[in-house]
């Protein structure tokens, strides 16, 4: 009896120890404390996968920049293999959130029909062996998601910028909401839905773009006249009178020796969504100073026929002269290499873009049957070439009548409103007063107050009429 009691007591003690241990474990702090979030993240990437990343927090957005050589080639390969990518989207949808309202601008190019995107995940997912570049990208993404989930910092969004440091300067950007990540972890949403909620975009690297603009300017100093230079390189927000003396000053300094400036490294730093600082040391011209160009760059891929940006300002700095006060917070140009600009995301903008993407994904072009029949006769490679050429051709001016089964803008307005109702419900966002959809070409406008958008969550939503 005595032994049995003793054993029971021991068993109980062990049980208590176990419970206490678990309690201790559960009370442990977060794996990524807010004051060490970026540092820890970079350490984990280095330790687990040997990847060097730069991490930053901006507002409630956690951003990571990783350099992946060969990224552009990889994107090209997948785009050429994917026939869908060669099909021109039938319309463009731009979503914004301005002054408390969601605004969607639509430009229809070709007839389209609306269909729900497949609920199933990509059937090829998991079957193909991903390339090394994509593996690295996935690993970084995984670590970023883990950091977002396991930090006590207030992080609502994450952005991953994958940069190809090669000759073609492109960035691949992923953005997403931490809530979606949690839901995916809990298997509340599928992988496909998670991807639909995330944002993917490709852009020219702003720093590289700005440097190209400066380089083009310096070359054109010799070739073009002053009025032409002013016209081509002055940002719309600036007055020619302000820029003229600065341009002349630069021309005086360079005196046609711009090639010497190209042989040395320049320093670029993006300071906001559209502005990049480019510091060009004048040492090759036996000048200890630096020329600081403030460049405005255009978003996205840009139009190859247009200038990708313009100059906002040109400053001449003397030897060891500090940057102007406005730019001192960015530190000396030599330190710009290790930093990157992270646009802080906001929920309404994120929602607007997501709704626009969903609308775009739902619009399926109605192919010209005759054309398709002709194309199908050709071998596959020829088909791809033709589609590529068609993609780059501007849309025909003469609009044909809508084929049977084609959706109208009225249908699209209903669709977008329903999508908005769905997405705002996901993120529990109600701070908007209305939603509007505008046909850019005809100017027709559909407007729905926020209270009515709620009704689109139900089965038989009301019909929206265009605003007279």
């Amino acid at each position, binding site marked *: 009896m005595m032994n049995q009691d003793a*054993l029971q007591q*021991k068993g109980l003690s*062990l049980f208590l*120890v*176990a419970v206490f*241990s*678990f309690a*201790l*474990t*559960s009370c*442990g*702090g*977060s*794996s*990524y404390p807010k004051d060490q979030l970026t540092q820890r993240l970079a350490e984990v990437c280095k330790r687990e996968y040997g990847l060097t990343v730069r991490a930053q927090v901006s507002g409630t957005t956690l951003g990571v920049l990783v350099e992946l050589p060969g990224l552009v080639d990889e994107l090209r390969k997948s785009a050429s293999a994917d026939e869908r990518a060669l099909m021109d989207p039938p319309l463009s949808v731009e979503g914004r959130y301005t002054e408390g309202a969601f605004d969607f601008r639509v430009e229809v190019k070709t007839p389209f029909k609306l269909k729900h995107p497949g609920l199933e995940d990509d059937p090829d997912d998991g079957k193909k062996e991903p390339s090394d570049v994509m593996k690295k990208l996935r690993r970084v993404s995984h670590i970023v998601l*883990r950091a977002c*989930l*396991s930090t006590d910092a207030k992080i609502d969004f994450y952005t991953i910028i994958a940069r190809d440091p090669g000759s073609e300067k492109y960035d691949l950007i992923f953005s997403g909401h931490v809530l979606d990540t949690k839901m995916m*972890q809990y298997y509340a949403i599928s992988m496909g839905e998670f991807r639909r909620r995330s944002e993917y975009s490709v852009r020219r690297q702003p720093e590289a773009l700005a440097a190209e603009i400066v380089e083009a300017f310096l070359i054109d100093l010799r070739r073009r006249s002053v009025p032409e230079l002013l016209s081509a390189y002055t940002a719309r927000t600036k007055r020619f009178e302000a820029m003229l003396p600065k341009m002349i000053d630069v021309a005086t300094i360079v005196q046609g020796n711009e090639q010497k400036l190209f042989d040395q490294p320049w320093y670029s730093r993006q300071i906001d969504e559209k502005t990049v600082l480019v510091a060009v040391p004048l040492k090759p011209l036996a000048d200890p100073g630096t020329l600081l160009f403030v460049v405005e760059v255009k978003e996205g891929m840009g139009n190859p026929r247009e200038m990708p940006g313009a100059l906002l300002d040109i400053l001449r700095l003397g030897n060891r002269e500090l940057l102007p006060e406005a730019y001192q917070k960015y530190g000396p140009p030599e330190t710009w290499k290790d930093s990157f600009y992270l646009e802080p995301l906001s929920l309404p903008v994120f929602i607007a873009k997501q709704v626009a993407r969903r609308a775009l994904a739902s619009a399926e072009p109605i192919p010209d049957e005759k054309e398709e029949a002709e194309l199908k006769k050709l071998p596959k490679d020829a088909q791809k070439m033709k589609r590529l050429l068609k993609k780059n051709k501007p849309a025909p001016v003469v609009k044909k009548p809508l084929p049977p089964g084609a959706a109208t803008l009225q249908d699209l307005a209903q669709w977008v409103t329903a999508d908005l109702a769905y997405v705002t419900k996901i993120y529990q966002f109600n701070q908007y007063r209305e939603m509007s959809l505008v046909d850019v070409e005809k100017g027709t406008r559909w407007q729905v107050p926020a209270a009515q958008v709620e009704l689109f969550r139900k089965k038989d939503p009301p019909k929206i009429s265009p605003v007279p």
Partner: protein
Amino acid sequence: MSFFRKIKIWVVDHWIVVSVVGGVLLCIGLTWWGMSQLESFYRTMTLATMPMTMLMWLVSSVISAFVYVSIMFGYFSRMDKKQVKSSSVNVRFDDVLGIDESKDEAREVVALLKDRTRLKNVGGKILRGILMQGPPGCGKTFLAKAIATEAGIPFLSLAASDFVQVFVGVGASRIRKVFKDAQRQAYASGACIIFIDELDAIGRARTYSSMGGQETDQTLNALLVEMDGLQGRQESIVVIGATNAPEGVLDAALLRPGRFDRKIYVDRPNLKGREQVFGYYLKKVQYDPSLDIPRLARRAVGKTPAEIENIVKEAALIATRQGRDKVIFSDLSEAFERVDLGIKHRRSMTDTEKKMTAYHETGHLMATYFLHPTDDVFKASIIGRRGTLGVVWKVPREELHSHTKVHLLANIKVSLAGYAAERMVFNTSTSGVSADFENAMAIAHNMVWQLGMGKKYIGDWEMVANSANGSLNISESARTELNEETNQILQECLKEVEELLTKERPLMDRFVLELLRKEELEYDEIEAIFRDAGKARGMLPGF
């Protein structure tokens, strides 16, 4: 040094506890380390699911423990066997009626059980098993109860199907359990009877195949071992088994001496037995004292005591329905009819169909009356019963245990008479002849193939054909000839019947008219018509 030695001795003495505690601590430690390596989100997720996981683990452990303990302690082997004390059974030999020969054998068994001590002193062995065989409803269970009561020993009553269970091995386990209980009872009371009803459920011949045989083989093996296995039993346990199945169905090992030593065949009661049974069951109801019980017994040829009981109960219901407080002969007569023929079911028939049915049944009636050596027609009816459109109820005058060729041919003629009548009158036949043909063909086939009643071949050719490689044992020509003989018998019988019906056509027409008018003709009415036509055989005594 001594401290370390003490520790060492303690560890050696308590190595189990030390191992368990060490193992538990190691598990806890590993879990703690593993959890600490997880990132906080995943750690929280794991902790969140842990309580539910532990609860499910606990529930599944409880269920597994329950099942394990149940199997170990034989809960699945438990069965609701009826353990009946002899005093509560209270069935005496005097209560067992109608099976006197079987009763005499049972008395002998009881005498052996009562004198078991003296028997042991002499050197004899007590009976191990008694097998009661016979048609259902003849009183096998009743006789077993009487044996238990008269012997004054405990009586465990079971059904063999109780041993057949979903789980393999449970049947055998239950057999062992029953015998163990019986041993305890026998130890207390000197002997014990285990009565297993429907023994063929577990006692069928065992199958030997590479697939392992049936689960009931295991149960049977257990029974064989318990009855007379390697370990001899000290206590007197008598197993009484009851079965309807023929002896050939049961396993030979079960029937050998040393197991079911005695075989008591409980057959249908004879005339005297039936009288006793009628008297017994009628005493349980209010009946007219002037009822002629011998007459009832004569009518109930081939009936078992259970059927007689059923007839008496049915008669009581009929009497009640008709507002009488006593059972009279007509109630019993109607009860006979209801039990043998079934409840009337009037169908809406066209006149032609009714007429055809009337001629069909009249054919049977006349063939029975004129050609059958032993059977009498008690009733002819064109009211449907049990799926038929009409019926001729014929009953043997006396019990016969074997049938002559004449008798069998008469049965064939009676069966074919319906077809003959239809063809003769309407020049066609109906689908109603199928059952008659089946019966006639079965008899004719048996006569030629099994009973040697054909012209050329004698012997049991059916057995030869059904044995292994049967098709090789009989030549095609022999088979053809046998079938031809069968057909010849049928043709000859048909011809004879046709001749009879042609000759007695006016009488046949008269019967048809009467049937169409009255729908049913009783024995008296049938006899009256035959008498009127000058063809009566004479009524049987008592009828």
